[in-house]
């Protein structure tokens, strides 16, 4: 390949035996001319320590308000190939399963109509096709539609829901995260493609506390698998692990709630009412321990990555949600809960305020009352820092007395 631009700084990033995005971009450049200019601009940015991309604009496909992330070079004369370099978000399959034939077809579209660079998958969960020109967007959209794919979310809309592989491959799964993710994606197509929210809203579904989608830190609404009954124990297998490592050091002492004990005679004992379902012991001894059989999920709300204000972890909203039961009704209970949350956010949220920030601003009490949930101890995220307690009924009685 004859290089248009000299890229000494980027070349440094090809050294070593690990994967290199520079090497991948160069490979893509063999199939797409624009990608040469991409290397040139990135090199210039590295040299000057200045970003040369502009955001936003009026790019999209007809009828859709999201799915395309508009990007333009601010040096279009120097790098004409990447004058327009939009990202197309394509809704991934639940659990990321594709046939190799389908992957080839998807990549063919990227080579023909864009930079041939993909992000499989973005941190949002979507498949991201990079480097599409404005004039190609409609064609790209049509081609993906023919394959049975639709655009994902972007902007002030519901973002593409995503989930872990759950029951398809993972023995830890406490509910069918793929089924639920697909069901919710189908139900809220309008909210995803036609932005009407104050800001973005993300759902992520992880079927156990290992939380492979990082939903507790990233999703406005996290659904994380848990179980109601006891951890299943195979005492013989526990003994076998004991021959390989020190059970006390690696398991018992590391239990965050200190609800485990072990002796050679009595075997492993777990006081399940104190277990927080953190998954540590199960991860360490997967052949000996398994989650209980009464699976479901905990629903949490309010996480976000740092953008407008700082990062937040989500708080518990519903300690145990019987997913399987609700799945029989097409997740009607869950959808109803979501509509109430969105109504509240629509009514009281301000522009660019995520739901977690709104809850913090108005107070958890006001929020849960508005959406019709009962306050529960599990909702308490932190011990209180304010020593003053206001009992409303006393205030009212006092007011009456004063007349």
């Amino acid at each position, binding site marked *: 390949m004859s290089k248009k631009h000299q890229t000494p700084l980027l070349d440094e990033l090809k050294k070593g035996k690990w994967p290199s995005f520079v090497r991948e971009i160069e490979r893509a450049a063999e199939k797409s001319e624009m990608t040469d200019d991409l290397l040139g601009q990135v090199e210039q940015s590295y040299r000057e320590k200045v970003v040369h991309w502009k955001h936003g604009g*009026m790019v*999209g496909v007809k*009828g*859709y*308000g999201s799915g395309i992330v*508009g990007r333009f070079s601010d040096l279009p004369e120097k790098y004409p190939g990447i004058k327009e370099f939009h990202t197309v978000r394509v809704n991934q399959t639940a659990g990321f399963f594709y046939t190799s034939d389908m992957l080839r077809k998807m990549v063919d579209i990227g080579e023909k109509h864009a930079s041939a660079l993909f992000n499989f998958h973005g941190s949002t969960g979507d498949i991201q096709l990079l480097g599409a020109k404005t004039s190609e967007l409609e064609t790209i959209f049509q081609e993906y539609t023919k394959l049975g794919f639709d655009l994902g979310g972007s*902007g002030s809309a519901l973002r593409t829901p995503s989930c872990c592989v759950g029951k398809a491959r993972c023995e830890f799964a406490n509910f069918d995260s793929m089924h639920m993710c697909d069901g919710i994606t189908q139900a809220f197509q309008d909210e995803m493609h036609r*932005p009407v929210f104050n800001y973005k809203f993300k759902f992520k579904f992880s079927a156990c506390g290992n939380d492979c989608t990082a939903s507790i830190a990233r999703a406005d609404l996290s659904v994380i698998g848990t179980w109601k009954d006891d951890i299943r124990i195979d005492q013989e297998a526990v003994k076998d692990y004991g021959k390989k490592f020190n059970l006390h050091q690696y398991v018992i002492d590391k239990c965050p709630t200190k609800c485990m004990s072990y002796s050679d005679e009595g075997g492993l004992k777990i006081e399940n009412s104190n277990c927080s379902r953190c998954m540590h012991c199960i991860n360490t001894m997967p052949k000996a321990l398994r989650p209980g059989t009464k699976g479901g999920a905990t629903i949490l709300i309010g996480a976000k990555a740092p953008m407008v204000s700082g990062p937040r972890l989500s708080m518990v909203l519903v300690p145990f949600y019987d997913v399987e039961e609700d799945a029989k009704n097409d997740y009607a209970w869950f959808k109803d809960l979501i509509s109430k949350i969105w109504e509240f956010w*629509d009514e009281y949220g301000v522009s660019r305020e995520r739901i977690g920030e709104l809850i913090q601003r108005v107070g958890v009490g006001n929020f849960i009352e508005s959406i019709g949930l009962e306050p529960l101890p599990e909702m308490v995220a932190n011990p209180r820092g304010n020593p003053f307690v206001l009992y409303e009924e006393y205030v009212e009685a006092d007011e009456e007395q004063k007349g």
Partner: protein
Amino acid sequence: MTDETKKKLEEAIVSLIKEYTNKKRFKPGDIVKEMEGKFSASGVTKDDVKSAIRELTDSGQLIYGYAGGSFLALPE
């Protein structure tokens, strides 16, 4: 909502956006609130306004833009 109200609603949305071109960027949510208030006497609901926006964007009379948040605009 009668067909006549629907037509009036769609016209009102487009003319509001036209009037404020280059002055104010209307988020879809702003339009919903604005129109819900304006047409409340005709029984227009949030969902009616949303479906009007949907028809206007599907037919290309309005398009979506993005600048820190999504907004509605006239096609360029």
